[in-house]
């Protein structure tokens, strides 16, 4: 365990993690997940929000076991490596809002940074605009970081706080398995509390145990290796440190190879799975997401791994993502294969303004 752990914290850790994500994600598609969506933290959070009835977009409702696995895998890794440290108090309200806004941006593009890289590796060239936007958002975040932006310090918290997010994940797993139903309305539609898609992306999923196992493995590896799809770009530019970037490169290369081997590589702009071709808002959506994730200290996957370590602020960021997904699919902010939603562009502009305000005004207070 000790040698393995040291290996994962070395330069090779993110590369191994990226390679495994790049192999598992296309396999999860093969086993039933939606196209180029082996793992997408925002999309899967959106599906969970739908399954809980926070939005009623019938095509995107499912409790994704991958998310549960990512948190619990990181939780186990943190416990074994004595890194389980419950903490909170670093501007939780702002982190909640950043989670919401990052989700607005990512759902205009239709994917988190993980899926942006996976879409690229599947031949979806629309992802290029998204990744360019992501980099632009991260660069803007770096400008704020250089200027002294900070959400302040977190502080040690009671041990029990660190168990809350893992407990929420276990509860979600129970809800997935039990799928309680209160009944049906006059039209015969389920009234909840748990909704599962009968058609559309939400109905496409790998078998529960495979999804859960993949999430657990990735969560374990990523907690040890500090894998982060935002930190990859941020550290390369800000600190001239390519450790995390090499993990993302490994992810893209291995996902490309796995897609080729599985017959899932389909290059082009048109008719890509769960994607649209509006380059401007693919760029804009991910610029918002990139900025919001950078201001929050890491990509949505990293927020889940930190939540598994006991960071309640990261846990709240994820709750913000769920609420953001609820709004995005209730009020026409999320895009669809047909293009952007009626309020998507406005939400991106408003979200960018709010993030810029945070970037300019949040400073660590001198005590």
């Amino acid at each position, binding site marked *: 365990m000790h040698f393995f752990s040291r290996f994962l914290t070395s330069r090779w850790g993110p590369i191994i993690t990226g390679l495994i994500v790049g192999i598992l994600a296309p396999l999860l598609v093969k086993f039933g997940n939606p196209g180029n969506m082996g793992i997408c933290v925002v999309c899967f959070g959106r599906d969970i929000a739908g399954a809980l009835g926070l939005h009623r977009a019938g095509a995107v409702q499912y409790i994704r076991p991958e998310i549960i696995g990512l948190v619990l895998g990181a939780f186990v890794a943190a416990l074994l490596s004595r890194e389980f440290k419950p903490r909170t*108090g670093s501007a939780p309200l702002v982190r909640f809002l950043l989670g919401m806004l990052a989700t607005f941006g990512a759902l205009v593009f239709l994917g988190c940074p993980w899926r942006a890289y996976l879409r690229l590796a599947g031949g979806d060239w629309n992802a290029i605009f998204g990744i360019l936007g992501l980099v632009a958002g991260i660069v803007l975040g770096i400008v704020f970081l*250089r200027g002294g932006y900070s959400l302040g*310090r977190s502080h040690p918290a009671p041990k029990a706080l660190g168990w809350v997010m893992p407990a929420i994940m276990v509860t979600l797993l129970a809800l997935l398995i039990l799928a309680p139903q209160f009944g049906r309305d006059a039209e015969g539609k389920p009234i909840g509390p748990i909704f599962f898609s009968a058609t559309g992306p939400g109905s496409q999923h790998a078998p529960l145990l495979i999804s859960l196992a993949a999430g657990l493995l990735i969560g374990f590896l990523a907690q040890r290796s500090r894998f982060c799809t935002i930190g990859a770009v941020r550290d390369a530019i800000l*600190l001239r440190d390519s450790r995390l970037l090499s993990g993302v490169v490994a992810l893209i290369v291995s996902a490309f190879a796995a897609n080729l081997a599985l017959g899932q590589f389909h290059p082009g702009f048109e008719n890509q799975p769960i994607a649209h071709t509006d380059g401007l808002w693919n760029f804009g959506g991910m610029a918002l997401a990139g900025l919001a994730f950078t201001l929050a200290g890491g990509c949505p996957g990293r927020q889940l791994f930190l939540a598994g370590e006991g960071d309640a602020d990261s846990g709240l960021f994820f709750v913000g993502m769920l609420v953001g997904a609820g709004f995005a699919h209730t009020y026409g902010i999320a895009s669809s294969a047909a293009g952007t939603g009626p309020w998507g562009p406005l939400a991106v502009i408003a979200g960018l303004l709010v993030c810029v305000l945070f970037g300019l005004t949040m400073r660590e207070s001198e005590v």
Partner: protein
Amino acid sequence: MNDTTTVDARGLSCPQPALLVRQALQKLGKGSLEVLVDSGTARENVSRLAKKAGWTVTLEEQSEGNFKITLDK
């Protein structure tokens, strides 16, 4: 007499610990810098950055998961 500068990076999100230490090291040029961190990620990032810039890194675990990193050049 203690003229060692200290950077307290406890509780800060990525990439602030590494960023603060880089700024402090550039300002210091050479000498000794103490850094307090409370996460494995910050400990690794600060150590890696300092080593790359030619500083010697000494770790001291003060309590579980809390480290004092001494950087010398």
